[in-house]
């Protein structure tokens, strides 16, 4: 497959090798993150006017799901401020080379947690509280603080970025969908890695740290767990690490072979189908049930939410693939064919996000000028009226996203499927799900 090595460009390569540009971005992001926490905790409780809600759930989400994930994969992880304080504490330094002796416990994460089930759970926890989380600034502030301190705590106890790799609710699905992105970090020549002494990309050296994501670049075939932190570009003594432009969804040719990742696909696929009904649909009872956390109706909502994701969607999918025969076991085919849901799931999220991002984007102007709701008018836009944007292209854009997703998934199903087995049930499954999404969104 054709690839263009971006790191051949000396400007790009130097910019990635140097720590300073990244550090500058880190400081800006960290300051913004802490400001979002403060805004959530002390700013106006009116979500649409509070920086934390507007910048996290509208601006950041729009950038993440519409740009960063589809085009840059784990590009967000490369600049995410959440792990930084913990990582700096863990290393005892910001820029200096690591000490030989670890400063903290530096434990290895127990094997039973070395998967993405915890990320599946943390995402679902946020998803079940999302109606409150997305609209209540102080809850958003508390969640942002909790994530920051969870990352610090895990950095002190465990080695590397345990939070990012195993717990971050966002990192889980970014990893899943980063497989579709047209960008990758890969080694140039496998033989160089085989003969490389000390493997500094994984173990660290005097010029940089061992992979914070606990990945050995030499064996990497997918984007899923590479956080694009660029540390291996700095540590590789053989200049054997490249950032490549590649065709979309290159990683999906290699099907999923893990149950936690297969279920991640279903969790994201299901949540993307439930949210339009809850957040955009006309059903007041459903909205109330999702919003009134802790009440009887909320527990029913939570139970239905989880049942759709863990029983209904995988159940129908399994019944569909049971009608076909293959050499692989049903479990293997389930995991393998779930890969087909990845591009469609991403497009579901794109289509759904277009709705609320374009509807609410005008709040960004007001929140920029008066982020805490204290009556400021920093940029003269504090009184900008709420105005849905690009309403005429919304429905066509959503339809296009869904159709592209459906075709993309059908092609993926054919690629990952073993020879001679029909992919028709998976394609029908995707078609029905796409039709439901069209009905919910349009």
């Amino acid at each position: 497959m054709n690839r263009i090595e971006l790191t051949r460009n000396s400007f790009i390569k130097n910019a990635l090798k140097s720590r300073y540009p990244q550090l500058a971005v880190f400081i800006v992001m960290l300051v913004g993150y802490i400001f979002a926490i403060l805004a959530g905790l002390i700013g106006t409780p009116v979500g649409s006017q509070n920086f934390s809600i507007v910048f996290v759930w509208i601006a950041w989400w729009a950038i993440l799901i519409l740009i960063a994930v589809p085009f840059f994969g784990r590009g967000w992880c490369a600049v995410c401020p959440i792990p930084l304080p913990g990582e700096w504490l863990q290393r005892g330094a910001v820029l200096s080379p690591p000490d030989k002796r670890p400063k903290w416990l530096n434990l290895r994460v127990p094997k039973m947690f070395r998967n993405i089930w915890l990320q599946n759970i943390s995402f679902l926890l946020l998803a079940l509280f999302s109606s409150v989380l997305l609209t209540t600034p102080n809850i958003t502030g508390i969640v942002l603080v909790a994530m920051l301190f969870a990352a610090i705590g895990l950095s002190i106890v465990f080695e590397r970025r345990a939070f990012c790799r195993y717990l971050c609710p966002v990192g889980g699905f970014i990893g899943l969908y980063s497989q579709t992105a047209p960008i990758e970090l890969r080694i140039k020549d496998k033989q160089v890695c085989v003969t490389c002494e000390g493997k500094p990309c994984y173990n660290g050296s005097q010029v940089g740290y061992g992979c914070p994501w606990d990945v050995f670049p030499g064996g990497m075939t997918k984007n899923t767990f590479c956080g694009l932190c660029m540390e291996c570009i700095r540590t590789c003594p053989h200049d054997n690490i490249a950032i490549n432009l590649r065709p979309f969804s290159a990683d999906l040719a290699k099907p999923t072979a893990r149950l936690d990742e297969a279920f991640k696909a279903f969790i994201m696929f299901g949540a993307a189908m439930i949210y339009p009904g809850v957040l955009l649909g006309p059903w007041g009872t459903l909205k109330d049930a999702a919003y009134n956390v802790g009440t009887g109706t909320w527990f029913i909502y939570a139970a239905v939410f989880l049942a759709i994701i863990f029983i209904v969607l995988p159940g129908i999918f399994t019944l569909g693939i049971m009608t076909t025969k293959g050499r692989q076991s049903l479990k293997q085919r389930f995991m393998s064919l779930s890969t087909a849901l990845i591009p469609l799931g991403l497009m579901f999220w794109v289509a759904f996000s277009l709705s609320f991002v374009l509807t609410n984007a005008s709040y960004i102007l007001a929140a920029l000028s008066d982020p805490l709701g204290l009556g400021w008018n920093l940029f003269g836009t504090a009184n900008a009226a709420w105005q849905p944007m690009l309403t005429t292209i919304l429905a066509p854009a959503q339809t296009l996203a869904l159709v592209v997703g459906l075709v993309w998934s059908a092609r993926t199903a054919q690629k990952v499927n073993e020879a001679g087995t029909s992919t028709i049930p998976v394609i029908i499954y995707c078609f029905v799900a796409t039709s439901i999404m069209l009905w919910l969104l349009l």
Partner: protein
Amino acid sequence: MKRPELISRILIITGILLAVGAPLFLWARTPLIHARMAEDGGWNPDVIQAEAGKPLHLKLTSDDVVHGFAVGQMDMQSVDVIPGKVTDITLTFDKPGIYTFYCTRWCGINHWRMRGTIEVSGSPSDPEPAIVPLYVSLDLDIDAPHDSPVIPIEKPSAISGQQFASNLPIDQSTDYYRSNAPYQVFDELTNASLTEQQSWDVVAYLWQSNTTPESLANGKELYAQNCAACHGENGAGDGVFADDLAEAGEASMQTMEGAMNMVMQNPVDFTDPRRMLGASPALLQGKILRGGMGTGMPMWGVIFTEEQIWDLIAYIYSFQFEYDK
């Protein structure tokens, strides 16, 4: 420690301190008065200090829905308090005392509970004697039943009553009008050679002659802003909150801290002639001034001036009488 490491640490710590310190500092320096629906706490703070003669600058914001802000017994235009936005207002109080500020938007069934006080200090330059309300000086029991034993068949007409009134020796003074219920005046007319309907028409005329079109217009405006939410635009006790109040009942009264075991009553129907023709203006003054004491009817004595209350009463009787347009 190498220089780049030191500089980066200083930059990071400075950034974090700025990100935490600047918002906190600016937030602490911007005291806001938060408006929330009464169930969620009403005004916060609900007691504000001020000095007579000195401008009081207030920054108001709403934490939930649109509210309004006005100070009772003060000649001011109410301002809207918008969710997440800040409304600036400057007030100057001429005299010391305790003023009541209140919500002017129908924000929920407990809208009328959204009140607070402004304590204005200063030495009173010209102490004013307390004015005893008429209902107190008449020693009226404003909670006693006051139904009229008789009611007219048709709505009494002031225009029709005018032609009969001129030949009758009736007292048209304000004191007489305010102290008597329409039914009492009707009763005094039994000796006159009038039909029952004609007598009621005379009563209507007497009530009209004790008000002015300006007073009625003012009363109508006050009614629309403050009373119609419960009592209804047409006075029938069917305002937008009436059903909610009946439904909320006791539970609604229990939502407030310190509420006693009270049951919300349905708003009074001002189109009911038995009730209204048995009530004197003084009695209605008492009910408006003091409120319904546990019925859900708020006390308006701290909000309306005496003149406003009489205007309001004049307008409320227009639900019973046909006045000259």
